[in-house]
């Protein structure tokens, strides 16, 4: 790429508002990918008009045009944004709890054989239970519906966090601990200055996987719990379910894409946090 084309692109970007990164190789590829998906979707969903018969699967999907129309109307609807906010909030609550409890618990299991011996059997028995299988129990156990949802979300991310932290801590190079020990590091110093930073990359892997699971769980939990007044119920999961019950099919798609966007945004936020917390990783 020559300087001339670069500067003309820069000028174009200044003239029309073009998001940063669109002119990069990756940005262009992503744009093409989105366009291809939209075209295939549009052709498929309108197949009855130009083919005379519905294509399987795609023929029953609302067209992108109708989805965009419905979406455009929803953007001015505060209840749509309320659904976003509620799901986001729940994810944030459950996920933060999972990180705050999962990291110390994982470290404890990795570094203390007694704790591992006691906790691991129970942990391994509970771990295969899908978070959604906890929903009925959670509704019974917790006083409010909100707490039930939060606890189920928490479980979704918690196991992943713990597994990753344990794995990261057990993969810790023993030489680091030996060196730090011979240089006079106390147990606390070795924990803080060696174990913690060594486990940090694994914590980030756990968070990235965990937040994805969190979105899966929140939506399903909201579908089950249904709507309610005020802070109870609602959310993007309920939004989709409600659209289905109300027969507004384009709105289902709007809800689905909204979750996709919300999920990628939260993953991107975690990825953006990593070089701040672990600046040495980009040196590899």
């Amino acid at each position: 790429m020559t300087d001339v084309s670069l500067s003309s692109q820069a000028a174009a970007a200044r003239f029309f508002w073009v998001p940063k990164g669109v002119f990069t190789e990756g940005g262009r590829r992503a744009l093409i990918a989105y366009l291809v998906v939209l075209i295939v979707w549009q052709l498929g969903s309108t197949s009855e008009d130009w083919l005379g018969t519905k294509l399987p699967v795609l023929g029953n999907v609302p067209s992108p045009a109708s989805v965009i129309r419905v979406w455009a109307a929803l953007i001015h609807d505060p209840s749509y944004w309320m659904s976003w906010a509620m799901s986001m909030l729940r994810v944030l609550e459950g996920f933060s709890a999972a990180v705050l409890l999962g990291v110390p618990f994982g470290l404890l299991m990795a570094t203390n054989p007694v704790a591992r011996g006691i906790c691991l059997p129970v942990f391994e028995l509970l771990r295969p239970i899908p978070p959604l299988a906890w929903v009925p129990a959670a509704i019974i156990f917790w006083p409010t519906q909100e707490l039930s949802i939060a606890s189920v979300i928490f479980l979704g991310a918690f196991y992943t966090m713990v597994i990753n932290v344990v794995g990261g801590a057990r993969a810790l190079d023993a030489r680091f601990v030996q060196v730090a020990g011979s240089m006079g590091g106390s147990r606390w110093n070795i924990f803080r200055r060696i174990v913690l930073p060594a486990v940090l990359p694994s914590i980030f892997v756990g968070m990235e996987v965990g937040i994805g699971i969190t979105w899966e769980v929140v939506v399903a939990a909201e579908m089950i719990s249904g709507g309610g007044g005020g802070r109870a119920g609602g959310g993007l999961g309920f939004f989709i379910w409600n659209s289905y019950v109300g027969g507004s099919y384009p709105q289902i798609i709007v809800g689905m894409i909204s979750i996709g966007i919300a999920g990628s945004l939260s993953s991107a936020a975690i990825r953006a946090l990593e070089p701040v917390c672990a600046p040495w990783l980009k040196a590899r």
Partner: protein
Amino acid sequence: MTAPSPARGAICIRDAVKIHGTDSAGVAAVESCSFDVAAGEICMIVGPSGCGKTTLLNAIAGFHGLEGGSIHLDGRLLCGPGQPKAPIGPDRIVVFQNGALFPWKTNLENVAFGPIVQGRLGRKAALEKARGLMAEAGLRGCEDNYPGETSSGVRRRVEIVRALMNEPVVLLLDEPYRALDSLTKSVMHEALLDMYYRNRVTIIFITHDLEEAIFLGHRVVIMTSRPCRPKKLLEVDIPHPRDYAVVTSRRYRELVHETAEAVHEEALKAFDLGEREAAEGGRFAA
């Protein structure tokens, strides 16, 4: 740096025994191993792979204990009767084979690590001292890089500076230059000697590289194949300070040759032993 004090750092190993595994099915890694390292000496240890050199080094460092015999440092018992395992301390610092700089700390923070965690210096003073030592060692310019951004040769030098920062009396080097190419190695050797001439700290240096052993050492201890014990002690009568011109001298070539013969014999034994064990292992597996 304060004046070198070669009166410290004498190691005395007597009848050391180390058995790997349980007592009944144990394999003796070290047996009736005795030798002395004088204060301020560079003692090179060579021997076949897997003969137990590292085991011995780890026992001096205190990473594990001995089943028998004793190790003294300057007349003080490190490990032996009544004290199965030497205490780990900043007077004996190990520099490992593949390097063990903390990847999450910059080179400068790595060097400053010891005095900070010991509480001997404040963070600022430690960083300042580390900067000075690195500059002295010709490592200016890479202080604020992470080890991952640094070439392997520079990393090894940083690691040795990190060790020296603790003012150890013994430096335990376990094949620190193994993975380096020979050109980088020769630079490392001169840098190490340069640091040694300034500090005169006792150095116990494990290597497979015989030329490295002769070039650096006052003495070369050639170990037998497992169990590890000194087979031959070779005085390197080439005066220090040395520089790279030494490698072209006749005496140097003679000594390398002499070492090679002794080592080769043991290497053959170790190889046969390995073959036998592999065959036995194969039988058990089948």
